[in-house]
């Protein structure tokens, strides 16, 4: 059994600052992390490996420093790591990214055995698109199971899988076939702490670094900026609202008075609400 999981190294966006004058992202000193959603997928992959045997290969596309993220994944217990890195990939949008990753997955399949499952996280915290997973599935002609909250059962011999998939207003229980691509929802499992043995192994183990040619990519026009149909024309900060909130003064007033003043202020601005609130209240 072979599982490939795609992870991305992302800036810890909670700590990102925007330059006040140039409106660009200030990256200096911003720590990087494994995209948090990918960790749920990684944990799921490792659980399956532990239960059924086989191997887990982690794959990432990014600059050379993305090796750190892969080492972390090895520290959690992944068996092998591949970093797809080449200047030709710079500026890839989701279509170009899914192209490069799908080519690398095909190469991983040829080299180490065809994957039974390809995992990704639901989305990344920097791009937020949720498009790369479906893109990879489409390119590799894999069945796609997105927003998976739970793998209910899996039968590697019969090539069958059952999952619970989050959808609008409920959960779909789906039966499908292997191989497939799964995008994992957040909060689906408890992420393990890597064992000391894994951590030591990770420090020693080798991260395979592939450039475009090594990943078997011949058509470079499908990579990077050239292979990206979408172009970013403008990046800007949201416009601040002109005036600040009108303050209700609380000094020397009882809370009761402040509350009544607030209700009066709300209804002065939105008279229709009086009816609405009363109506909602069933009064």
């Amino acid at each position: 059994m072979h599982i490939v999981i795609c992870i991305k190294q992302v800036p810890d966006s909670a700590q990102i600052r925007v330059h006040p004058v140039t409106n660009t992202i200030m990256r200096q000193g911003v720590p990087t992390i494994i995209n948090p959603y990918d960790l749920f997928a990684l944990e799921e992959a490792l659980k399956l490996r532990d239960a059924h045997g086989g191997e887990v290969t982690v794959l990432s596309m990014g600059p050379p420093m993305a090796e750190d993220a892969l080492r972390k994944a090895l520290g959690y217990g992944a068996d092998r790591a591949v970093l797809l890195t080449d200047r030709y990939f710079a500026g890839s949008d989701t279509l170009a990214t899914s192209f490069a990753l799908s080519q690398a997955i095909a190469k991983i399949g040829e080299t180490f055995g065809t994957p039974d499952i390809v995992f990704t996280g639901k989305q990344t915290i920097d791009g937020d698109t949720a498009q790369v997973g479906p893109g990879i599935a489409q390119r590799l002609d894999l069945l796609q199971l997105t927003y998976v909250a739970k793998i209910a059962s899996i039968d590697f011999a019969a090539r069958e899988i059952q999952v619970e998939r989050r959808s609008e207003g409920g959960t779909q229980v789906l039966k499908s076939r292997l191989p497939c691509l799964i995008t994992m929802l957040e909060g689906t499992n408890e992420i393990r702490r890597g064992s000391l043995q894994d951590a030591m192994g990770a420090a020693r183990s080798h991260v395979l670094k592939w450039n475009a040619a090594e990943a078997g990519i011949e058509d470079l026009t499908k990579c990077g900026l050239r292979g990206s149909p979408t172009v970013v024309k403008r990046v800007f900060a949201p416009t601040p609202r002109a005036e600040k909130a009108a303050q209700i003064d609380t000094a020397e007033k009882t809370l009761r008075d402040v509350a009544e003043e607030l209700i009066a202020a709300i209804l002065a601005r939105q008279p229709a609400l009086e009816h609405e609130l009363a109506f909602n209240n069933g009064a």
Partner: protein
Amino acid sequence: MSTANPPRPAAGRAGIKKELPERFKDYRHVWVFIELERGQVHPVSFELLGEGRKLADKLGVQLASVVLGPPGEATWYAVAEAFAYGADLVYIVEAPLLADYRNEPFTKAMTDLVDTHKPEILLLGATTLGRDLAGSVATTLQTGLTADCTELDVDADGSLAATRPTFGGSLLCTIYTLNYRPQMATVRPRVMPMPQRADKPVGRVIQHKVSLAEDEIVTKVLSFLPDSQSAEANLAYADVVVAGGLGLGAAENLQLVKNLARTIGAEHGCSRPLVQKGWMPADRQIGQTGKTIRPKLYIAAGISGAIQHRVGVEGADLIVAINTDPNAPIFDFAHIGIVTDAIRFLPALTEAFTRRLSPHSRDKLAS
């Protein structure tokens, strides 16, 4: 997973529009996918029709809807609703295997329709269904797709300008798909206002046949478990929302938010840290990675107003903020602010509303 490199400011190639390749020259009209699942049209489809109308008018083209569903009343009801919300024509694919959403048949039906009827713009809701479908349709068609847009426009040469938050909402970027067709975008529910519903006579329907056979579709839907607390699904569409943040200090204090919400018939929500702490379920989270809301009244108690929260509530008509810190960023976009302890103030506000709303107390006061 997402782009390998974050979007950069306009430079070099990004500004270049080439001559559109010959094969795309007859791509015309704006399409909106009508999300129909389990007999229900998702309201985001109507919000998109409102926006699609504006784009189509600017381009001087028609606004079309795509309805994919099983043969029957619900599917035709969706067609009628699409007209009522502004579609000029509707493409419909009816097949029993389109009853429950599955990626394979929906992707097949949609790509087939696009290849046959060639739209220049295709819009879908950024729901779980819409994002699942849009990703594989765009890859199959080898075209650009911009996710989770908050603003759509067409520029002087008729290209779709799709604006979306990036870096967790700290910045916005405007994205174009210049040399490929269709130009695809998904838009989150509640970002666009609901358009006026008109009782328009039924328009033109184009029925499309797709060769789909159930035994060719590998994935099967075994069952569907609806959300037990159906109210949870209503947060995005509630007229009044009360939300609590980390400033409430303890899980127990969320009861104060729920009490106020119940008193005024509102839905309750929260900021993200409360979900991370397990104080509230994830579908109550409001903001960039939670729900976008568009209520007539939003009351935020103990919420700082970080950009990721702000983008989820900006569409509210009236924002009231209760926060102990006079410099909290929420006061930069709230309409009415009160600098006070929410834990003490919420009960007082609940009581004041009770007095105001209860007809009995009103009678008593009058007598």
